[in-house]
């Protein structure tokens, strides 16, 4: 395998990793019937907190934990407002993004201009030494492995466990789930917190690995791409992984194309994730059964046990 091609694939994997985390979390949230549009804000919160903690403590591990917790904290605010106080999920999610952008800039004020060494690549005995495959799959940092693992875990959880069934039931019909004695609000709280933790990890990946530094608004819209990705994947973890590499791949390949002198307008390429998502939506909408099987039916609706 050609060296350039190999490096390109490695770059695509790193470009896609924050998307995988953020989108996977949102997928679980939406599967539980909650629409949290605050992914971008939670990513930024995770990015700034993980960078701050990693910088001041000197420990990348603590940084990762801090990013995860920061994402969860922001998600908790969202969950309290929408699930306990029943505010509009769409409006609250948008507000969460605005809040996340602002608060992360505030926290990060003193961190501008500071560099961080980044996470070391983990060497896995034997596996990392395999030709080609070793380099492609086993030469990454812990967060990339985590993203592979997380996709597998979520897929297994949603499709193979009782708890996953409960979560899907809550997302499909909260009234039916409630009638069965499932505590809808509690399930949604947990799912929302998980989503926040994942978005926080995506943010931690940005500020600790991808570009190891803090800069204002550094997620630069990746949270929105993650939201598009969930729809693109038709709420399936496997397809989500595929989609993330596709979206990451498009953005990397257009840069390579330019360096090679292939003249495709780069603005067009920046639009592609959204265009593709719309296209997929149109295609799956032709087959109504397919949407019905996958899209959570009660997404975005407030639940109150007495109604």
């Amino acid at each position, binding site marked *: 395998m050609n060296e350039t091609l190999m490096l390109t694939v490695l770059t695509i994997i790193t470009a896609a990793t924050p998307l995988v985390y953020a989108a996977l979390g949102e997928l679980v949230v939406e599967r539980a019937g909650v629409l949290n549009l605050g992914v971008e804000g939670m990513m930024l919160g995770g990015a700034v907190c993980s960078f701050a903690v990693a910088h001041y403590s000197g420990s990348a591990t603590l940084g990762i934990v801090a990013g995860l917790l920061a994402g969860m904290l922001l998600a908790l605010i969202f969950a309290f407002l929408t699930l306990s106080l029943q505010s509009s999920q769409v409006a609250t999610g948008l507000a969460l993004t605005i809040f996340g952008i602002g608060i992360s800039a505030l926290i990060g004020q003193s961190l501008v201009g500071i560099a961080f060494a980044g996470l070391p690549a983990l060497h896995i005995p034997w596996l990392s030494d395999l030709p080609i495959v070793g380099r492609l799959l086993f030469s990454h940092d812990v967060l990339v492995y985590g993203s592979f693992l997380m996709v597998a875990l979520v897929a297994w959880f949603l499709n193979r466990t009782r708890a996953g069934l409960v979560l899907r039931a809550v997302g499909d019909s909260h009234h039916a789930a409630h009638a069965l004695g499932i505590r809808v609000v509690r399930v949604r709280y947990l799912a929302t917190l998980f989503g926040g933790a994942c978005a926080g990890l995506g943010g931690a990946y940005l500020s600790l690995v991808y570009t190891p530094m803090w800069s204002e608004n550094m997620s630069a819209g990746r949270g929105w791409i993650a939201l598009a990705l969930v729809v693109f994947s038709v709420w399936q973890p496997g397809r989500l992984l595929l989609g993330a590499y596709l979206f990451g791949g498009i*953005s990397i390949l257009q840069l390579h194309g330019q360096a090679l002198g292939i003249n495709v307008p780069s603005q067009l390429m920046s639009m592609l994730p959204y265009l593709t998502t719309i296209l997929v939506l149109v295609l799956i909408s032709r087959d109504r059964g397919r949407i019905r099987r996958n899209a959570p039916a009660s997404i975005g609706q407030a639940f109150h046990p007495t109604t």
Partner: protein
Amino acid sequence: MSVYLKRMGVVLGAAVLSAVALSAQAADPFKVGFIYVGPVGDHGWTYRHDVGRKALETEFGEGVETTFVESVPEGADAERVIRKLASSGHNLIFTTSFGFMNPTLKVAKDFPDVKFEHATGYKRTDNVSTYGARFYEGRAVIGTMAGMMTKSNIVGYIGSFPIPEVVRGINAFTIAMRKVNPDAEVKVVWVNSWYDPGKEADAAKALIDQGADIITQHTDSPAPLQVAEERGVYGFGQASDMSAFAPKSQLTSIIDNWDAYYVDRTRAAMDGSWASMDTWGGIKSGMVSFPEYSADVPDDVKEAAEVVRDGIIGGTLHPFQGPVLNQAGEEILPAGEVMDDGTLLGMNFYVQGVQGDLPK
């Protein structure tokens, strides 16, 4: 979406400004306002303007009160913010992005007693000055260094938007590079953003993957240098000294220096000698400067860079001195002639040595 967010910010900013205006009337210091297109934390363009603002505070102390509004979108909102500053007792207002040009002029017409300074524009009136820096002079210096230090003869250039300012930088860099190394070529990747660390890093990776062993950039974040450091290639900092992010990789940096200009203009406005004028300063006036070279720069490269720098300061060397050839190899400026500022300001073509087509 992001426009909406920024609007919210502008509304909040305007509210804060009116509060500031009310509380400040008693002391009556000279009030200077700044309007920034990005966040002061970008470590690039806006960051350096804010360093200039802080220089005013150091220089004049209590005598001057400064206000800034950051992340102001270029458009209708800009006019609102500028108007707000003008109507809240600011005596001098710096608007620091090209897109603020027309809003600045519009507001200036309604406030003849307020003085305005617009960065990188070309329209002036009695109370509107323009200023900018000849960053291309700095690019001629780093282009010389790149030409001498590249081994693969491929140098990567990360561009923001294909506007004359950026194209001029690419061309100045390429001309200087080819003077010392006629075989070297420049590959350009556009990221369509002034500031997106992730995308800038990806662009740097793409360029390095395709053989570039030195990269340079006209975008504002240190991310490309971090990639260069990680991949073991060289690079140059942009707008500020970025050596903290790439201690081994940054050979030098082009620093934007507005401090002296801001102090001068504020003093002039305070003592009444302010007049509308255009300033396009460069290395000579100190608007463009360099931090110390890295230890990796060999002595002969250092000397060559200094010859170019000193030549520009002394007026014996111009980065766009003929013969200048276009990409097709046709001579567009005969030997010995120096390109006029009009052509420089509207530059919309690549010179020989730049690969690929300029996006239109």
